[in-house]
C-alpha cells in the first residue's frame, strides 16, 4: 500500500484547525515556498463542534477598553493559573484576528455606524465580545471553511478517524488514519502534525458537547508521549437545558437575563453581588448547585434546575439578539422565553486542560503542534472566561499554523519508512475488537458507566473519596473495555468500531482528569475540593502535566508564568 504524504497534517477541521491551515498556506505563499497541507477530520469540517458556540469572541476593539484590562479579566477568571505571557499574546492579537475574520466575510453583528458590535460577557469588566447573532461559532466556522476552499494547497480527508500518531523519542513522522467510508487504514507521512481535534466533553454524561467530542486529539498526543496539562480543570456552564444539556448562551445573561431560584429571588445576590449574572462561569455554576442542594431550586437536586428569565428583555430584543435561543427553547423544551422563564442547570461545557504547548503551539514532541480546546497554552488556567475560547482558536490556531510552516521550511523530514504502520494499526485494532468480538460488553454500556462515574466523582464539587471512587471505576472499566462486544465486523462505515476507538480514547482522557483532580489538594477556579476548600498558592500555583509511562500515569509539575499581575485573592 502506498503511503500518503503531506508536509503538514492537521487533525481536526474546526476553528483552530482551519485557522491554522489557512495561516500555514499564507505563510508559505508569503515566503514563496510550497507547503502541502492536509486536514484530516472524522467529520466534515462544518460538523465540527465549534459550530455550536453561540455567544461570541472577545477582543479589545473599543476606546474605553485596554489590553491590560482584558488580560487582567482573563487572569482573574483563570484564578491566576493562566500563563501571563500567553494571555498577553491572546489579548494583543485578538483585535487583528477579529478584523481578519471580518475581512474574510464573517457576519459579525454591526452597530448602526457600520462598526462591529460588542456585547457583555461573564467575567469581562467591559463590553468586548463580538458576535454573529447567537450563532457565532457557526458563522465563524463556515466563514473559515469557505475561505479555506480557495487555498488549493489544502487537501481534506473528510471522515477519517486518526488511530495513532507515528513518532519516536525524537520526532513525529506522520499519522495512521481510518477512512471510515471504506474501512481501510492508511499512513500519512508528514514533517509536522497538528492536533486541533477539540475537547472531550463526552466523557461526562450531561454535557453541551456534541457526540464527536471524545477527546481524540488529547488521547492521541498522550499516547504519542506528549503531556496533558491542567486536565483537572473542566468547565461547567451555568445554563444548559435539563435532560438534553443543550447550551443556552451566556449572552442571554449578557443581554440582561436574570437567574432566579424557586423562591423567585435573584439568588446570585448571595454569592457574587457585584457581578450578579455577569460573574464567571465557575462561580455561578457553584451558586446554582448550592441553591439546588439547599432545596431552593425546582425539581430534585440531582437533576433540578433554576430559571433563566429573559421576559423583561422583550420580544423584539430577543428576536434580534438571541434568535437561536428562541429556536432552541421552543424546539427542545416547548417553551417560549418571551412569556416563560427557561429552566437551566450547570452542564459540562469545556476542558481548560489539553496538550501542553508553548506560545506557538509547539508540544514537547518535536514536530507535534496543537491548538484550540485540544491544547493548553495556557490562557484559561483554572477557569476560562466565556468568549475567550473562540478568540483562542483564532490567535493560537494562526500562531501554530505559522510556526509549523516555519518548522517545515527548516526541516528535511525523516526518511522513515511508514509502509508498515497502517497494517500495524489495522491488525491491532481488528484483532482486539473484531476477532474475539463476542465475549465482552457493548460499547454503549461501558461508555454510559464511564460518563456516570465522571459526573459522580469529577463534577462541580469534588472530594478525595469521590475522585478515588472514579479512579477505581475507570480502572475497572478499562479492564472491561479490553473485551468489547462488537457485532459489526464489516468495513464500510463501521461506526460501532469507531465508537469503540473513541471509548478507548475517552478512558485515557477521563483518567487524566480524575487523577490530576485527585492530586490537586486545593480549590481553584473550576476545580473545587470540598476537602480542601481554599486556594493554596504556596503549594499549588503550578500546572500539572500528566504523562503516560509504562508504569501508568505520572504527574510532573511545572511553574506558572507570571509577568505583571501578582496573584491575589480572587474577588469580584
Amino acid at each position: 500500500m502506498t503511503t500518503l504524504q503531506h508536509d503538514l497534517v492537521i487533525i481536526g477541521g474546526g476553528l483552530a484547525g482551519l485557522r491554522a491551515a489557512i495561516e500555514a498556506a499564507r505563510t508559505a505563499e508569503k515566503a514563496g515556498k510550497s507547503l502541502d497541507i492536509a486536514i484530516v477530520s472524522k467529520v466534515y469540517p462544518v460538523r465540527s463542534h465549534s459550530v455550536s458556540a453561540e455567544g461570541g469572541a472577545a477582543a479589545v476593539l473599543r476606546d474605553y477598553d485596554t489590553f491590560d484590562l482584558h488580560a487582567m479579566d482573563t487572569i482573574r477568571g483563570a484564578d491566576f493559573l493562566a500563563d501571563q505571557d500567553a494571555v498577553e499574546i491572546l489579548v494583543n492579537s485578538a483585535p487583528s484576528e477579529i478584523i481578519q475574520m471580518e475581512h474574510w466575510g464573517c457576519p459579525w453583528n454591526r452597530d448602526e455606524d457600520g462598526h462591529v458590535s460588542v456585547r457583555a460577557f461573564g467575567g469581562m469588566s467591559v463590553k468586548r465580545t463580538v458576535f454573529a447573532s447567537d450563532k457565532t461559532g457557526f458563522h465563524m466556522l463556515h466563514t473559515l471553511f469557505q475561505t479555506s476552499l480557495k487555498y488549493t494547497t489544502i487537501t481534506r480527508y473528510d471522515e477519517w478517524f486518526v488511530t495513532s500518531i507515528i513518532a519516536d523519542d525524537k520526532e513525529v513522522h506522520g499519522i495512521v488514519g481510518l477512512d471510515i467510508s471504506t474501512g481501510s487504514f492508511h499512513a500519512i507521512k508528514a514533517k509536522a502534525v497538528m492536533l486541533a481535534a477539540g475537547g472531550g466533553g463526552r466523557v461526562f454524561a450531561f454535557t453541551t458537547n456534541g457526540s464527536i467530542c471524545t477527546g481524540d486529539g488529547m488521547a492521541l498526543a498522550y499516547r504519542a508521549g506528549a503531556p496533558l496539562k491542567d486536565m483537572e480543570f473542566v468547565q461547567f456552564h451555568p445554563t444548559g437545558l435539563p435532560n438534553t444539556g443543550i447550551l443556552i448562551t451566556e449572552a442571554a445573561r449578557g443581554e440582561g437575563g436574570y437567574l432566579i431560584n424557586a423562591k423567585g429571588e435573584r439568588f446570585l445576590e448571595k454569592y457574587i453581588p457585584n457581578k450578579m449574572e455577569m460573574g464567571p462561569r465557575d462561580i455561578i455554576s457553584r451558586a446554582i448547585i448550592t441553591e439546588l442542594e439547599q432545596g431552593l431550586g425546582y425539581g430534585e437536586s440531582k437533576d433540578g434546575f433554576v430559571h433563566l428569565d429573559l421576559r423583561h428583555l422583550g420580544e423584539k430584543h430577543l428576536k434580534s439578539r438571541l434568535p437561536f435561543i428562541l429556536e432552541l427553547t421552543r424546539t427542545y423544551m416547548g417553551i417560549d422565553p418571551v412569556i416563560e422563564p427557561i429552566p437551566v442547570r450547570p452542564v459540562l461545557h469545556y476542558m481548560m486542560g489539553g496538550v501542553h504547548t508553548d506560545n506557538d503551539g509547539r508540544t514537547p514532541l518535536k514536530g507535534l503542534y496543537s491548538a484550540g480546546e485540544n491544547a493548553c497554552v495556557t490562557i484559561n488556567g483554572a477557569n476560562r472566561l466565556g468568549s475567550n475560547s473562540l478568540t483562542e482558536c483564532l490567535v493560537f490556531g494562526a500562531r501554530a499554523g505559522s510556526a509549523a510552516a516555519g518548522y517545515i521550511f527548516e526541516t528535511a523530514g525523516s526518511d522513515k519508512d511508514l509502509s508498515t504502520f497502517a497494517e500495524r494499526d489495522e491488525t491491532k485494532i481488528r484483532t482486539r475488537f473484531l476477532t474475539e468480538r463476542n465475549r465482552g460488553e457493548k460499547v454503549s454500556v461501558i461508555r454510559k458507566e464511564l460518563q456516570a462515574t465522571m459526573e459522580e466523582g469529577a463534577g462541580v464539587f469534588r472530594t478525595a473519596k469521590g475522585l478515588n471512587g472514579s479512579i477505581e471505576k475507570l480502572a475497572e472499566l478499562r479492564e472491561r473495555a479490553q473485551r468489547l462486544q462488537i457485532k459489526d465486523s464489516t468495513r464500510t462505515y463501521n461506526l460501532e468500531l469507531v465508537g469503540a476507538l473513541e471509548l478507548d480514547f475517552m478512558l485515557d482522557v477521563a483518567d487524566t482528569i480524575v487523577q490530576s483532580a485527585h492530586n490537586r489538594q486545593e480549590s481553584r477556579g473550576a476545580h473545587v475540593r470540598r476537602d480542601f476548600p481554599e486556594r493554596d498558592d504556596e503549594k499549588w500555583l503550578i500546572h500539572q502535566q500528566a504523562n503516560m509511562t509504562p508504569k501508568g500515569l505520572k504527574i510532573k509539575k511545572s511553574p506558572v508564568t507570571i509577568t505583571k499581575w501578582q496573584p491575589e485573592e480572587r474577588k469580584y
Partner: protein
Amino acid sequence: MLERRIKVNVERQNFELQEGIYTQSYEVPVMDGMMVLDALNYIRDEIDSTLAFRWSCRMGICGSCGMTVDEQPRLTCQDNLNEYSDEISVAPLNNFPVIRDLVVDIDDFMQKKLPSVSPWLIRKEEAPLDEGEYLQSPAEMAKYADNSACINCMLCYSACPVYDMEPNFVGPAAMALAQRYNLDSRDQGSGARYSVLSGPDALWDCTFVGECSVACPKGVNPAEAIQRAKVEAAQRWAKSIIMPWSQK
C-alpha cells in the same frame, strides 16, 4: 401514564452483507419531547449497535443528521416524534449515493459543488488589518443574512427533483451560498461567480420547484436566491449584448 411505544422502520443496506435494500423494524419507547434522532440513538445503544447514521450536535446546527422520515427530508435532531404516528419510516436522504444504512455520500457537494461557486469574500485588494473592519450597516447585513444561515445539511438537494435528474446541477445550497457573497456589500467578486452561475448546470437548470425552500430547516430560501440570481444574470447578459465594452 402509559408509555408510548413506536415502531421505527429503518431502510438499511450494507453491500458487504447482502445486496439491496432491506427494512428493519425496531420498537422504541418514547418520552414526550423525544426527537427522531433520539429514537435512532436508542436503537443503536440498546437494540442494534450495527445501525449506521451520522449525528453530532443534536441541536440543529451541525447539519449531520438529515434523513428521509416518512418520505420527507428532515433534520432528525429537531424532528419531534409527537408530530408522527406510532409507526414511522426512516431512510437515507434521497438523491445521494448511499454509503451504508442511513449514511449518504455528500462529497459531491463538499469537494466539488460548493468550491465551484467561489464561496468566499473576493476583494480587488485586501485592506490592511490595521485599517479596521470594512464598514457594513445592519441593513446591508440583513440583505445576505438569511442566505448565510445554511448549515449544509443537504435537505434541499434531497428535495430537489432537478438534482435527481441532473447530477451535475450545482444545486440549491451552493447557489444560495454564492448569493450570500454576491449580496454582501463587502464583496467585489460577483462577476466571477455569475460566470459560473450563468453557465451550464446552474441557474438555468432550476425549474423553480420551490421545494428546496420548504425543506430547509434553517429558514434559508434557496428558491428565492436562485430566482433573484436569474434576474441579475439576465440583466448582465443583456448588458453584455448592448454594451459589450462594459464587460471587463
